[in-house]
């Protein structure tokens, strides 16, 4: 019986989320689109759910299975919402909105970052300390030096290897 009730929940959940996707995909004010009433959409789903739970509760003494059922219900609820969100976010319309948001944040962040950088540079200069750009420059020089030293090491290794080969060839096969 419990399983049947859970299956009922699951079915309701699936239908509910699919309807939600349809609801989300309808552009507001689209020509010919009927007015959507979210309450009307959710009500049968909630009524049936509440009915199922009251039936379950009236069947006898409360069992710890209820706790498991509740966890399963929450898992399915989250999974259903996850699918809804994934379907919504996997659309070009969402990607476009995301891109616009990012552009807007860059429009705000760009000048703010530039102003903050200039302010920090000026503050450090007035204190006679190295600027951020100078510290980064030093770090880059160190990395370049490391690269050069490693390049020399590689060449030295190659020369030593070649020498070994020449010496080996000169000695000939052991008798």
């Amino acid at each position, binding site marked *: 019986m419990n399983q049947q009730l859970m299956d009922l929940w699951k079915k309701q959940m699936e239908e509910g989320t699919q309807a939600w996707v349809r609801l989300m995909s309808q552009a507001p004010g689209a020509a010919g689109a009927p007015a959507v009433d979210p309450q009307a959409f959710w009500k049968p789903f909630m009524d049936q759910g509440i009915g199922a739970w009251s039936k379950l509760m009236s069947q*006898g*003494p*409360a*069992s*710890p299975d209820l*706790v498991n059922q509740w*966890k399963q219900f*929450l*898992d399915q609820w*989250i*999974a259903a*919402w*996850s699918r809804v*969100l*994934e379907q919504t*976010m*996997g659309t*070009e319309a969402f*990607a*476009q909105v*995301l*891109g616009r948001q*990012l*552009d807007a944040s*860059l429009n705000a*962040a*760009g000048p703010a*970052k530039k102003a903050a950088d200039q302010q920090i540079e000026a503050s450090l200069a007035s204190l006679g300390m190295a600027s*951020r750009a100078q510290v*980064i420059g030093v*770090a*880059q020089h160190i*990395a370049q030096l*490391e690269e050069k030293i*490693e390049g020399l090491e590689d060449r030295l290794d190659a020369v030593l290897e070649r020498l070994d080969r020449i010496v080996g060839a000169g000695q000939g096969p052991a008798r």
Partner: protein
Amino acid sequence: MKDEQFTMTLEAPRLSPAMLARWQEEVTRNFLRMKHLAEMVLNPKEPEVGPTPREVIYKKNKSRVYRYASKRTVRTPLLFVPNLGISRPYIFDLMHRGSFIEYMTGQGFDFYLVDWGVFGPEDNGLDVEEVVTRLLPRLARKALQSSGAREMSVLGYCMGAPLSASFVATHPDFPVKNYINMAGPIDFSHVGMFGLWLDPRFFDVDRYVDTMGSIPADMVKAGFKLLKPTMDLSTNLNLWWNLWNPDYVTGFNALNKWANEYQPFPGEFFRQWVKEFYQQNRLVRGELRLGGQAVDLGRITCPVLAIGAKEDNIAPPACVRPFIDAVASTDREYVELPGGHISLIAGRGASVHCWPKVASWLAQRS
């Protein structure tokens, strides 16, 4: 009449002894949940991660190569190339009995891990080209020298797969015995939501990099959280559900530490990665050029295994599988295992499905 009066009492619901025992268990679990929650909130402990002994065999700028020694019952050592940026590589050695590296060394593989390191603004000039043609070849060579072996197997995970595959394809002088692509995107036309969000119609990577310099960790975090917005909810629900279990809490703490430790990307790396891989899909089309050389995956001829994760939404199986068709190996295999991008390699499911598959496939060919 008198007796009848005394028997008129309210009847409590009858519970069977079995049900009573289960209720008692539930109550005990709730007490334990409260106790562990209080410990987590009032006395949080830094989880211990990376339990497998290791040594640094080489370091260059921020990057390191670690050696995890084994009894070396398998002749060919393994070089593991993970993603650059995004997250730290200790997920592969998260905790005792929950570590891919511990498992592989236990199976007799000498294990070499590339740790790209945490990049700062001074590394913003580092790009994919430099990583594939200069940095990775050096790290791989040092690992090979340290092992004393003639050949190495290479395993690329996530972004580490296209990077290491490009390296293997352009460095035929490096002796690769076997190659494994684990959840590594190759055909970016099937890369899912990230592919859509990073589409050039919606995302101007040049403007982003030019403005920000590097890609901050918070931005990386926002992208990954957005990919699965209900993840935090289900993680916390599962935590509450299993909070009575101290082993679960230990595992959760370690994983949670890793999952919230996002890493920044060097700006130029991100630019090239997004443009040439996500937006132009050059690798699988054979149009990628690095260091003046065409990257032709068809030059990979060693035995190849590609592993996709069924529920991976970062590198869906459809973008991993084409690797098998792109290489020229005669010994090639594709498997699709249960799990998501992370649970493919970390966690209980990984220890049952992925780790044994990798170890047995390699052992037969090493």
